[in-house]
């Protein structure tokens, strides 16, 4: 039992993965036909500034040396200067990361809090109308086209009913005024509710259906028969024996669903003008702001990798058979 070593081991794997991703990005943007420097150098820059970046990124040197420069710069967080904004890329992504984490993690957690109990219940009541209804409902949102669904939600709840803001994360006036912390938090929450609800609705089906299948498999295990033979009440069998064990494969699959969820996150951020990394990535690509696009992508990848690490730790905690 050595949790520390387990985490260290996983961190090592994450570093290797990041190294591969970075290399991939480098090759992707340098090996393009035509002038690869157009991907790194802002055409609008004055020649002196271009020269500075040329040096910083070793663009006059052979590709292999450029690669080493690139690795060093990435490692130190030097992603270069944005083509579009007057800031460095690092400053921008630093600002964009917290909103993404806020929206994404709350949506994932919330969808699991809803999906797991629901999946448990419909597996327990297999063949019931509830199961059919929840499955169809869940599957529809699982495959619905997110931007469209988001637009409809904005149209109904913000535009027509006026319950929520049309988009964004903050009301500038509130944050400019000296009103104390609480109104500010409330303001963020007010902006968060609609995108969060949309994302949660889209995500919960995944965990619900997974839990259902896992639960159905668990219910066939011998220890469930033992639990029945012991004379335990149904509720205890369902929760302490079936659902507890059915959680394990669901947590394993969390890894995959997180990456899938982030796809939805990118689209949702764009629709709701949520100032996060996903929206930044899309806008950067549309603005041909390649340094920012790369950094945003890298940060999204890091976010998923660390979320996966958390899932692994959670799994190790839930399954006593795991020896880290």
């Amino acid at each position, binding site marked *: 039992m050595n949790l520390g070593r387990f985490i260290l081991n996983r961190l090592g794997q994450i570093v290797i993965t990041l190294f591969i991703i970075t290399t991939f990005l480098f090759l992707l943007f340098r090996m393009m036909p035509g002038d690869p420097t157009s991907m790194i150098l802002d055409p609008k820059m004055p020649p002196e500034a271009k020269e500075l970046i040329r040096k910083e990124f070793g663009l006059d040197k052979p590709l292999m040396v450029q690669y080493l420069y690139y690795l060093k710069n990435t490692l130190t967080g030097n992603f270069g200067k944005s083509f579009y904004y007057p800031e460095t890329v690092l400053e921008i992504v630093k600002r964009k990361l917290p909103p993404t984490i806020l929206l994404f993690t709350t949506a994932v957690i919330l969808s699991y809090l809803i999906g797991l109990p629901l999946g448990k219940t419909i597996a327990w009541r297999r063949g019931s109308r509830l199961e059919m209804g929840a499955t169809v409902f869940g599957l529809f949102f699982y495959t619905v086209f997110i931007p469209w669904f988001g637009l409809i939600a904005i149209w109904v709840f913000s535009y027509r009913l006026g319950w929520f803001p049309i988009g964004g994360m903050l009301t500038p006036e509130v944050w400019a005024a000296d009103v104390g912390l609480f109104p500010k938090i409330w303001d963020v929450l007010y902006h968060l509710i609609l995108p969060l609800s949309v994302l949660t609705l889209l995500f919960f089906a995944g965990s619900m259906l997974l839990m259902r299948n896992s639960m159905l498999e668990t219910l066939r295990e*011998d220890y469930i028969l*033992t639990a*029945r*033979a*012991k004379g335990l009440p149904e509720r205890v069998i369902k929760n302490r024996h079936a659902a*507890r064990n059915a959680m394990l494969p669901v947590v394993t699959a969390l890894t995959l669903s997180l990456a899938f969820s982030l796809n939805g996150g990118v689209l949702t951020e764009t629709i709701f003008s949520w100032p996060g990394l996903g929206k930044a990535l899309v806008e950067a690509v549309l603005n041909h702001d390649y340094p920012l696009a790369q950094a945003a992508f890298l940060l999204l990848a890091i976010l998923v990798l660390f979320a996966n690490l958390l899932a692994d730790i959670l799994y190790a905690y839930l399954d006593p058979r795991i020896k880290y």
Partner: protein
Amino acid sequence: MSLLEVKNLRMCYQTSQGLIKAVDGVSFEVKKGEALGLVGESGCGKSTIALSIMRLLPPNGRLLGGEILFADEDLLTKDEEEMRKMRGRRISLIFQAALNALNPVHRVGDQIIEAIQAHERMGKEEALRRVEELYRLVGLDPGMMGSFPHQYSGGMKQRAIIALALSCNPELLIADEPTTALDVIIQDQIIKEILKLQKEFNLTLIYISHDISLIAETCSSIGIMYAGKLVEYAPTIALFQSPLHPYTQGLLSSYPSIKGPKRRISPIPGEVPNLLHPPSGCRFHPRCPRAKEICGKEEPKYRRIKEDHYIACHCVNNSAL
């Protein structure tokens, strides 16, 4: 006085191919403190009887008729909550494939405590002491209580299961092939353990196995099952001395014996019948060396042939004794 009386039990499983009549008109009784063995090939319905008594049949299991009287109460008419209170408290089951019978994510001790607390109002401390006592009783180190099932060996798991089954001092213990997954030496230890405990607590025991030599060691009387029917029932000694049913005779001669005269081991020819479409008449007749014309037409009655000896066969009549 009999503790358990099964009367004309009929049970089937619904499958996509049709009804499988797993138990078809089985009757027997078990006296208090007695050990009854049920023997038969796999698929003959012996496990289904165990699950019927516990009322733990899978969802596709259907009861077709009969009664199961436990202490003069019909278990088949009880509601689910009444039945739940019986399970583990008054009737315990040790079932097949016990290696997966413990939940891998909970500590073994906790799984036993949970069973005790489901039936008795008892504090954690007291329950813990009870489990400790049970561990000693079945020959386990009480220090293992806090460990998880994967830290137990096969034999230890089976002992823990026995401790679990005994945790509420049940009146009836049903052991369904409790040693199949274990190696021979451990098997022997476990059986000795069960025997010792049965004597010590004057337990009523139903021991289910395909191995008649195991049953002979453990049980005072034996019921032989074939294709969902009980074909012969007798005290162990009587059965071994003068087996009457051709199937029993075949079963006995297909096992080697160390004592007694040398003889050829002769397996029973043919295969276990498919219970979707069981043979007409006596279900054993296609394999029976003594089959007559009537055997294929008419089902033999299950009847008493002498003191405590019951049989269902056309070829054996009272005059032949």
